[in-house]
């Protein structure tokens, strides 16, 4: 090893005689990148301690023993738009074209727990996702899709309990008991306060709802992923890779803290926690990020939280390619960006993947665009050979050094967050929001100064307007949705709705688990707005510190 060091020193002296391009060599997040990595840079790496074997602690090389040789990642395109009928049709289309899991995008009113006829919903119904007001809508969305054999991910946060309850109720109608349902609710409120900004209640009651879900599902919906701890939105809001890694893990630890505080044994809920990361532009930084994330989570769950079940140690995660890296200019370039990002996610060992469509900077994707995105995953899986062996980059001097570096940087953030009193106090004083806003602004300035090149935006620019076909949301969606809502209100047993909402209020007040009451209200076709309204009255509304 000392020979390599000597040779490296000699080479370093020589390389100084060569001129480099005028460019700041660093990752897209600003981590410095050396010109060369050799065994010297990872001389402290201990294979068995730091990498080990797939499916074994510390899981750096992958969470399952045989990984993609056993089962490919799930190809799961996030989608949903217009009416429940539109969305049902799109799902059937995707399943026909080889997609292997569903992922529901809800419209803004649904995400905020508001009904389609709420004044706040005007103009937003069915636009960025599908509108759901009552169980009736969920029945339509999953019409003809057997919940027994498909796993479904739902990106939903403040009203996560209600949507999960609706899914359970659809299962009941299909004759599938909740014990056999598989899927995920996002249900990650901490990143909402930090980055994505979809909230209703203040942090503490939000955490109470989440622990109620953890507790309920550990008994009744044991195969469900109860929280998808999401770095995706943190990154989209402008965070660096290190911030995404550190904040997401810190949030994860906070949920574990609250679960334990609520009296649920850690090994009872931790195996059902899953993660959701971004796959951004910097190819190797992303791969290193996933590997570092697995190693940190395993270590902390085992050592800090004393989890005994190896399933509590292993970090399973979904990945979505970075929407914020797509450009409106020259939209076909986005096909290429997404291809590289998807490859990074797979080389990083993701369990499921959404590949963005080329037209998503403009609108929800057309069928053609979403198909190309799906094909990208199929090409990766079946033509490139990258799923033949596990963690193919393991051992790479650069990737291992970068994995180590991201891990160290993440621990520095953990210390800062601890010193602020933990994640929730840090949210309340705007710490995360400020860190993210500063990174976003720094990136934008780098782009404007052309330290960072964005093809088609600040270099290789073309005058011509791109001509691509876009998906139009029919303007009558809002009206149709409100009509159906009114019908449901007329047809349901309103007395039963009232009672169930009264029970919900009582539980909110006296601390009983909310889930059974929500499920009852859902079964009675209470609207999302009615249920969230009750809780809002009990829990109050959140106001964020304004920072830019």
């Amino acid at each position, binding site marked *: 090893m000392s020979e390599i060091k000597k040779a490296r020193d000699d080479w370093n002296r020589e390389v100084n005689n060569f001129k480099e391009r005028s460019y700041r060599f660093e990752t897209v997040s600003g981590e410095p990148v050396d010109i060369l990595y050799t065994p010297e840079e990872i001389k402290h790496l201990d294979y068995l301690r730091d990498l080990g074997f797939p499916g074994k602690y510390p899981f750096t090389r992958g969470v399952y023993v045989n990984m993609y040789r056993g089962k490919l990642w799930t190809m799961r395109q996030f989608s949903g738009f217009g009416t429940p009928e539109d969305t049902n049709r799109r799902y059937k289309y995707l399943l026909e074209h080889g997609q292997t899991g569903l992922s529901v995008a809800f419209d803004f009113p649904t995400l905020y727990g508001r009904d389609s006829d709420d004044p706040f919903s005007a103009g*937003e119904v069915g636009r960025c996702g599908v509108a759901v007001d009552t169980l009736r809508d969920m029945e339509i969305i999953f019409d003809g899709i057997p919940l027994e054999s498909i796993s479904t991910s739902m990106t939903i946060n403040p009203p996560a309990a209600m949507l999960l309850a609706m899914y359970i109720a659809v299962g009941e109608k299909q004759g599938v008991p909740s014990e056999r349902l598989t899927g995920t609710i996002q249900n990650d409120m901490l990143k909402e306060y930090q980055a994505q900004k979809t909230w209703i209640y203040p942090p503490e009651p939000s955490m109470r709802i989440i622990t109620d879900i953890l507790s309920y599902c550990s008994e009744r919906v044991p195969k469900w992923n109860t929280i998808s701890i999401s770095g995706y939105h943190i990154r989209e809001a402008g965070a660096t890779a290190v911030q995404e890694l550190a904040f997401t893990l810190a949030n994860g630890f906070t949920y574990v803290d609250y679960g334990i505080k609520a009296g649920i044994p850690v090994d009872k809920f931790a195996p059902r926690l899953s993660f959701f990361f971004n796959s951004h532009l910097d190819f190797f930084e992303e791969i290193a990020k996933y590997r570092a994330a697995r190693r940190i989570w395993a270590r902390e769950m085992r050592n800090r939280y004393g989890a005994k079940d190896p399933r509590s140690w292993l970090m399973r995660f979904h990945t979505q390619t970075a929407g914020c890296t797509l450009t409106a200019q020259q939209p076909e370039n986005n096909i290429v960006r997404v291809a590289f990002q998807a490859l990074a996610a797979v080389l990083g060992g993701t369990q499921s993947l959404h590949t963005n469509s080329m037209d998503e900077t403009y609108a929800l994707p057309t069928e053609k665009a979403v198909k190309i995105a799906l094909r990208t995953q199929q090409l990766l899986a079946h033509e490139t050979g990258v799923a033949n062996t596990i963690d193919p980059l393991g051992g790479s001097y650069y990737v291992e050094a970068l994995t180590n570096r991201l891990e160290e940087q993440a621990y520095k953030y953990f210390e800062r967050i601890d010193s602020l009193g933990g994640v929730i106090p840090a949210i309340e004083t705007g710490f995360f929001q400020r860190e993210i806003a500063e990174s976003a602004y720094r990136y*934008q300035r780098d782009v*404007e100064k052309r330290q960072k090149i964005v093809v088609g935006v600040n270099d290789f620019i073309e005058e011509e307007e791109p001509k691509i076909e876009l998906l139009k949301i029919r303007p009558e969606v809002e009206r149709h949705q409100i009509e159906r809502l009114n019908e449901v209100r007329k047809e349901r047993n309103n007395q039963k709705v009232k009672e169930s909402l009264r029970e919900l209020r009582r539980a909110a007040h006296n601390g009983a688990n909310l889930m059974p009451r929500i499920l009852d209200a859902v079964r009675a076709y209470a609207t999302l707005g009615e249920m969230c309204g009750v809780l809002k009255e009990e829990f109050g509304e959140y106001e964020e510190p304004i920072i830019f």
Partner: protein
Amino acid sequence: MEGKIRVLVAKPGLDGHDRGAKVVAAALRDAGMEVIYTGLHQTPEQIVEAAIQEDVDLIGISILSGAHMTIFPRILKLLQEKGAGHIIVSGGGIIPKEDMEKLERLGVKKLFGPGTPTTEIVEWIKETVKR
């Protein structure tokens, strides 16, 4: 014109993607303007009220949810009703070209597409507010 240019950066509607709004707000601040950022989830009424109260020269609306054809006309109408038609309305986000043109015909002064350099926005505001 005396004093600093005053700009209200506003996020109407339900969409919580405030990255663009914040980056633009920071850039305008660094370019020497007085920037008031409304925070999220503002109704058109709240935005117009804040604009009048803060006596701004210009409102910049950031919108990515697709509700632009509902929000912008509403703001323009409210400004007229409150006698504040002199306040310039502009904005940016994911807005199809044809909608941009329609909105500009309705009285939105200028809309910026994704990828616009903040320097271009700064320049445009300085020029537009000066005259």
